[in-house]
């Protein structure tokens, strides 16, 4: 991945979370505090703005900067989580711009290390794990095919959170009542991978 593609990805995510802000917020209102759409919009808009004045000629630098901006601008749990994801991805790409599959894996690891969620806890991890696995499996077929596979897997993973009971964060207080609602963070993870696939 080069700097231009990375910038295009971040811009596409910003556009997508803006378009889906109300949906993300509604999902979060059902099992959380109803700010996920606002949070991500603020974060990715800030990332786009930060990148506009950021001179970087590598995808690694662009994505690291994106992560750092998300960490400090989102204001919710998804900020440090997605921030860690993009920082770890960016750092991997800074070492090797072609190691996108490894970078995604490093991003996932960073999210798990910070948030300590396990698959099935009804979080973004439930979309992230299948997306990262699908990308790695399809990577031999090239970026476009792998990104498309990852996007499909993330969307499926997000949909599969609906029947789950939340075990992390505020939603966990709802116990059985959290079942029947799709997790907002898993939903936004699907948007992030859909934006990646859209670049291909």
């Amino acid at each position, binding site marked *: 991945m080069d700097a231009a593609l990375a910038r295009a990805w971040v811009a596409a995510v910003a556009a997508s979370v803006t378009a889906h802000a109300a949906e993300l917020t509604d999902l979060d*209102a059902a099992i*959380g*505090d*109803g*700010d996920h759409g606002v949070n991500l919009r603020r974060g990715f808009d800030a990332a786009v703005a930060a990148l506009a004045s950021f001179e970087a000629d590598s995808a690694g630098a662009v994505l690291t900067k994106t992560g750092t901006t998300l960490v400090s601008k989102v204001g919710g749990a998804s900020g440090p989580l997605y921030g860690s994801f993009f920082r770890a991805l960016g750092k991997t790409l800074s070492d090797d711009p072609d190691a996108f599959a490894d970078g995604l894996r490093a991003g996932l690891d960073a999210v798990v290390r910070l948030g300590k969620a396990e698959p099935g806890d009804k979080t973004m991890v439930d979309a992230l794990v299948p997306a990262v696995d699908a990308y790695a499996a399809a990577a031999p077929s090239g970026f476009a095919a792998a990104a498309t596979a990852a996007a499909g897997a993330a969307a499926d993973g997000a949909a599969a959170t609906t029947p789950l009971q939340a075990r992390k964060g*505020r939603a*966990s*207080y*709802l116990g059985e*009542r959290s079942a029947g609602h799709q997790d907002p963070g898993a939903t936004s993870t699907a948007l992030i991978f859909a934006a990646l696939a859209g670049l291909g």
Partner: protein
Amino acid sequence: MVGIVLVSHSERLAHGLRDMLVQVAGEEVPIEAAGGTDDGGLGTSYDRILVAIDRADRGAGVLVLTDLGSAVLTAQTVLEDRVANTAVLVDAPFVEGAVAAAVLAGAGADLAECTRAATEARDVRKL
């Protein structure tokens, strides 16, 4: 809907916590702040607590949470004096218990379930 009353030594603290709870519980849950003394200083006010409980009481009971042990004494006195016996004092961590109770109240849970959630918040680990 179960009501929630927040008894704090600080008026600001009680109102700030109320803001947070409204976000997770929605506007329909009656959540009342009873922070500070009558004149807004640090301490607890019998009258503010009484008014807050009366306001939060919509017939499904009221959960009263307190920040420090000394707030318990004032709240307990209010509850003993109050004729309508619909409010219960819960032994729970103030912020964490209130968030748990508010989430459940917003989901339509009854007083017993909200009380249990507030109490159990004590055992939820943050790290």
